[in-house]
């Protein structure tokens, strides 16, 4: 009887042991399935982020193109077209002039046409997505600032600190688009006279600072429908892992600060940041 009881105890213990191992095996199997489903969920989220990123990138490219086309169309309408019309009228009115006067008119027209040719040459170099990709951020920013400077309405300071390095073509494109949008806002609304643009390349961080001495605005207005451009800039900055801050108050100008941490292994471009900088 006693022996039977002992056997029963051993069986109970062995059964408990087997149950424990079955539970552990069950736990491991459950973990494997749970992990797999988390992996799939993560993958789907990453794909969605990637799709959103690609969409935003494409939008940036289109906006840069649109901005370029606007600039080209404005130049043709306001400058080249006007000058050529003037030359046409000027040459058309030479019938009753003396030979000397005709010669002076022709010389004037030739100068104007030379000027138009130069303007056309500049237009052919107008900025596009390819320009950012081929020449890099610094050169493209310089070209854009030179273009604004030619208007003669602004005193522009452009500084680069640190040794500039490529940030990756797509990141540079997004940063350039943020810059372009900031400049458009400044030109349209700020009534500024002085612009200060600073690029800071440090090993851990890239920083773009755009400072104007215009009329400024209340940063609370960023959340209004009129502030959609600024919100757009913020969301784009976030897209490439950067942060964008706006410091402004009425009458005190505006500072736009873009900070991009440099993590060379974390690259949205799916490539090394090898584009020209």
């Amino acid at each position, binding site marked *: 009887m006693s022996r039977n009881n*002992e056997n029963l*105890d*051993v069986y109970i*213990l*062995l059964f*408990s*042991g087997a149950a*424990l*191992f079955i539970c*552990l095996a069950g*736990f*491991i199997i459950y*973990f*494997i399935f*749970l*992990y*797999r489903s*988390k*992996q799939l969920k*993560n*993958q789907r989220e990453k794909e969605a982020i990637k799709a959103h990123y690609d969409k935003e990138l494409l939008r940036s490219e289109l906006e840069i193109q649109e901005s370029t086309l606007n600039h080209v169309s404005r130049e043709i309408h306001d400058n080249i077209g006007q000058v050529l019309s003037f030359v046409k009228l000027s040459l058309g009115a030479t019938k009753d002039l003396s030979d000397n006067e005709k010669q002076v008119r022709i010389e004037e027209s030739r100068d104007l046409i030379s000027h138009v040719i130069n303007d056309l040459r500049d237009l052919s170099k107008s900025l596009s997505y390819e320009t950012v990709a081929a020449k890099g951020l610094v050169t493209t920013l310089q070209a854009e600032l030179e273009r604004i400077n030619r208007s003669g309405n602004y005193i522009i300071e452009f500084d680069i600190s640190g040794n500039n390095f490529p940030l990756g073509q797509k990141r540079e494109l997004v940063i350039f688009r943020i810059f372009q949008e900031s400049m458009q806002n400044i030109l349209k609304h700020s009534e500024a006279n002085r612009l200060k643009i600073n690029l800071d390349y440090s090993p851990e961080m890239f920083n773009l600072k755009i400072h104007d001495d215009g009329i400024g605005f209340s940063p609370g207005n960023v959340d209004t429908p009129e502030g959609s451009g600024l919100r757009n800039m913020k969301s784009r900055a976030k897209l490439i892992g950067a942060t964008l801050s706006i410091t402004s108050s009425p009458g005190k100008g505006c500072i736009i600060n873009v900070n991009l941490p440099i993590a060379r292994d974390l690259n949205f471009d799916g490539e090394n940041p090898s584009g020209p900088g």
Partner: protein
Amino acid sequence: MATRFILYLSLLAAVFLFGLLNLRTLSLPFKILCVVVGITLVSEAASGFLNSRGYNNMAVYHLLSCIEYAGTALVFHGLLRSSRTKKLVIYSIIPVAVLGIMNSVFLQDIRTFPSNILLLSHGIFLILSLLLFKQMLEEPIARNLFRQSEFWVAGGYLLFSSAVFLSFGLQNYFKRNQLNLEPLNHMIYYTNILFYTILGIALYTEQANIRRPS
């Protein structure tokens, strides 16, 4: 010496040798894991030698239990990312070592198997392995689970520590009732063999991941 003991020692030697040959490519927690396996190999060999000569070999296990705890705690310290848990793991080494010494002096002298301290340390390993599983679930990566060394470490310790609890429980019962311990010894050996095989797989996947990152 029994064939199963030679098989067990050969496995330990193979895992240790593999780790040693790939030591440069392993990350720090796996380097420590390799050292822990090496220490286990030496102590098991010494224990087997003493046993075969008719000496009491329990002193080896008293020493091994403290060193094994410190080594394994360092492995988990390297694998876990929560700074709070890391601190707790590091700070636990000294009290466990002190308890180990007190256990050897006052409770289970060096001629007795140090089951108290082993139960304590394996209880902690059990919790740490569950925390490692939790961490993996919270931060899943794209790599196949079976190619993740952390999964093998967590799984190995979960199985082995649970088995330690079970075997100690059974062992006490078997001894008290003067039952044949041979089936239980078999079970303990094969659990050890399974555990060190899993650690071997962990070392292999770790060096493969470092050589061919996904």
